[in-house]
């Protein structure tokens, strides 16, 4: 039992991201309303961002900005003291691109609403098949 608890505690970041990602996936598959699908997509995306950021963490490491001051430009930097900057770089652009794609998704939803007067998927399908 203590074994199980220690494995869960050692990797709970993965559990959180998997839970969030599955909530998003469920919303994308099951929900009927297009806006709820878009919200699900964003939850999915947030899970990926959390996953990447949690990969970069090092115990005892600080933010990846090198301590510097005048006259000590050449002091030796130890990689262990700073957390991994690469996941942060990837996610930094992913967040902004995510907002931009959210805008595009909402624009498409507005277009669909203007055409079919509804955002419910089954009603749109019925109208498409009825024509």
């Amino acid at each position: 039992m203590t074994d199980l608890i220690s494995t869960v505690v050692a990797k709970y970041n993965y559990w959180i991201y998997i839970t969030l990602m599955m909530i998003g996936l469920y919303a994308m598959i099951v929900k009927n309303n297009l806006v709820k699908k878009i919200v699900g997509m964003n939850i999915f995306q947030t899970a990926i961002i959390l996953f990447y950021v949690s990969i970069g963490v090092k115990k005892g490491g600080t933010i990846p900005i090198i301590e510097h001051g005048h006259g000590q430009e050449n002091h030796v930097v130890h990689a262990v003291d700073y957390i991994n900057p690469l996941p942060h770089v990837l996610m930094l652009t992913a967040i902004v691109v995510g907002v931009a794609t959210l805008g595009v998704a909402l624009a498409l939803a507005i277009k669909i609403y203007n055409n079919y007067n509804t955002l419910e998927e089954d009603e749109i399908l019925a109208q498409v098949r009825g024509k």
Partner: protein
Amino acid sequence: MKIVGLIIVAVTGAFLIYAAADFPAWSDPASPASTYLSPHFIEKSMEETSVPNIVTAVLADYRGFDTMFETTVIFSAGVVCFFLLRISRREEPESRYYRHVLTGVTIQLKEGYKMPPSDDFEQIDAAWTPPDLIVKTACRILIPFIQLFALYVIAHGHHSPGGGFQGGVILGASVILFAISHDLRSAVRRMSEKLIAILCAVGVLIYAGTGALCLLLKQNFLDYSVLAGVLHVDPITARSHGILMVEIGVGIAVLATMIWIYNNVSSAGRYRQGL
């Protein structure tokens, strides 16, 4: 459908949890992600680019080509929202309403009549509601500080958390806050659609132009060290200056795109009152 979805989600989740057992433990300094490439960046980026913020150095220098196309993705998202939603045909409503700003008197103009250009009147919609005084005043006081902070975030991206993406989003948010607290029409009057579109393209152009400048100086695309000859600094400092140039480009592009997307989505392309 709900049952099928639940089964798919449960199976995928179970597979992922099973796979997570092989992942390195949380905050393990010896995890594979932290052992191969990142030590080089952490230890060398200061002497290679003289930028203390490793995230900025990797973003705009080592991975500069990738970031350029991320900026292009944002630019195209703004353009896509514009082309999807904007109703370019000017469909004037049958009667328009103008409100006298000082007294609040509203006049209605029937079709065919025109309002002489005047600063005392503002055009409003039929469903116009007066903006709340408290919200309006609070935003009016807040917005300059938000914008100042955004400029700090862009300019200080080398030495503290920040950079073009973050600062650009904060700048865009300040303008969006203005559009929410007042109305979209007054926001568009201060920052016209044409200006937004031009800024959007100029941001990407600054980024690509910096790369092309390096190319013209007979060095690789986006290799800022060659800018040393133009800027009269040593090649290492030139890379730090090159990073600042592209960060400014990114900031302008992100700022304009955020506002452009908000304007189009909130008013469904009509540019009237908005939310």
